[in-house]
């Protein structure tokens, strides 16, 4: 397996990362090189079509790069035998549209990722209750998504992303479907959880007010990184 000598602090390392669609007619990512370190809060910003969501898909192993290499903690993701293990145990995804399963209660939705662990049913339930308490939804466990507000749904989704103890959270416009008040609450929750649990957070947004809360901002334009800057007010790690 290809490894990288980036050291123990590096979570992701991208080398000449490209993603093309339609046989190369669409070039979503045009050769990215970057590193994301342990515990960092990185915001990826850019206009629609700039490639930020594509990059998040590659980081989350939801898709494969066309060329180039993406290392996770020193080893190439492309050479992993089972990417579902990576998705189940290493990362947690938070989607803009929440993507909860409508026929399952909040409690059940949080348990869904835990089916790929060896936890017994009672442990899964206990863990889900604990996570829902953590996101402030202890009283809404048995509600179906349709009966929850947008903010509450995103809280359930956040609890689900933490179900298997992920060390990396990938959030795709997590406040995009929320009003400003709920958006602020959700962002605070994500930032708090990330701080309390020492999680690496990669957050895609087009909202610069959110990006300003990150320690580092990667700006994308036309599939390339146009700027990679540290936020002086929040940063603690060098790039």
């Amino acid at each position, binding site marked *: 397996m290809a490894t990288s000598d980036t050291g123990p602090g590096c979570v992701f390392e991208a080398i000449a990362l490209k993603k093309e669609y339609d046989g190369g007619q669409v070039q979503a990512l045009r050769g990215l090189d970057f590193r994301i370190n342990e515990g960092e809060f990185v915001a990826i910003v850019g206009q629609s079509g700039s490639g930020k*969501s594509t990059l*998040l*898909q590659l980081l*989350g192993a*939801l*898709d494969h790069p066309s060329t180039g290499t993406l290392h996770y903690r020193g080893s190439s993701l492309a050479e992993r035998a*089972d990417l*579902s*293990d990576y*998705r*189940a*145990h290493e990362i947690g*995804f938070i*989607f803009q*549209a929440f*993507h909860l*399963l409508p*026929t*399952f209660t909040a*409690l*059940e939705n949080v*348990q*869904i*990722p835990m*089916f*790929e662990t060896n936890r017994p*049913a009672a442990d*899964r*339930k206990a863990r889900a209750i604990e996570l829902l308490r953590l996101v402030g939804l202890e009283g809404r466990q048995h509600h179906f998504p349709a009966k929850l507000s947008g903010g509450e749904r995103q809280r359930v989704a956040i609890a*689900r992303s933490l*179900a*298997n103890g992920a060390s990396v959270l990938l959030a*795709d416009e997590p406040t995009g479907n929320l009003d400003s008040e709920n958006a602020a609450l959700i962002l605070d929750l994500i930032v708090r959880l990330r701080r309390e649990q020492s999680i690496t957070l990669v957050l895609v947004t087009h909202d610069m007010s959110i990006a300003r809360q990150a320690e580092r901002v990667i700006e994308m334009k036309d599939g390339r990184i146009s700027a990679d800057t540290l936020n002086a007010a929040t940063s603690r790690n060098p790039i």
Partner: protein
Amino acid sequence: MTFFTIVVRGLMRRPVRTGLTLVGISIGIAAVVALVGISRGFETSWEAGMKTRGTDVVVSNMGSALTPKPFSASVVDRITPIPGVAETCSLLVELMSIEKAEMMIVSARQWGGFSWKNLKVVTGRLPHDAKERAVVLGKTAAEMLQKKVGDTLQLETEELAVVGIVDGGAVVENGSVVLSLSLLQELTGSEGKINIIDLRVTPGTSKEQLNKICDDITKAVPEARAVIAGEHIRDSQAYRMISAMSWGTSLLAVLVGVLGVMNTMLMTVFERTQEICILLAVGWKRRRIVRMVLLESALLGLLGGLGGVALGFIGVKLMINLPAIRGLLEPDLNLTLLARSVGIAVVVGIFSGLYPAWRSSRLSPSQALHG
């Protein structure tokens, strides 16, 4: 919450569609249960009739009709000298429309033959002799014809006295009109003709010896065939046709079931594309997705199978009271048939789920981010 909960919720997502699919499978499986149960019942009922008459071997010529072709009564003279043959009783058995009954077994028996001896008189008596212009009715036949001792029964052009109601110990026997052989030959203008010879062999005859006796009789009587009692019905082209039709219809019903379940599961997979992609995105392995889809379709099959068995069972029980078949057969709804029918339904479910499961396993988790 268990994995099974997830499977059940998948089916409950569209309860009307799931319900209609279950009805479709149930009807298909009910058809299997009813048709196969009835065709087997036909066989077992006749076999039971033979057993109660104490018949070891049946000599007949089962052609394409439900009753055997007639042949000369004199063939008995060629059978009795064959070693191992202990006793014979000639019969002329016809299916006839009698008064209110559309189809009834008329069983004319050689007077004094052993085939009379299993008949237990419930009321009245047996005929005094072969010449008495009288019949006895099996108890089901008496019910169907609404006759009692002292009434008359119109058979062909003559009214015969009903002198007794009998219990023959088997559905076929109880559904029969029984009279003396010479009387029916006279009424139907079939003098000197019979179509069945019931035969008893000497006690202690082995299966091999029984087969040899059958071979010897068939050689001695080329116009008929000797078969061990119970097996003769399987020789009938009519029975074979009924059996083939019942299996053919069942196969069609199963095919319709396969298409129904496959359609439902494909719709489910198409509708739940994003849900499946989310499951992949949160770390579910593809084989778990495949297992989920297959379990859903197997569960559809199982529930449809159980419903079909219940529906088929009730349907057959109602059907055997129809005038056209009442007293002719007792459906053979044994546990093996019922279990096999449920098994077929589960296999149908799993088979139908294979393609949808494969489709679901080809989905990319990246689709979760779209929409």
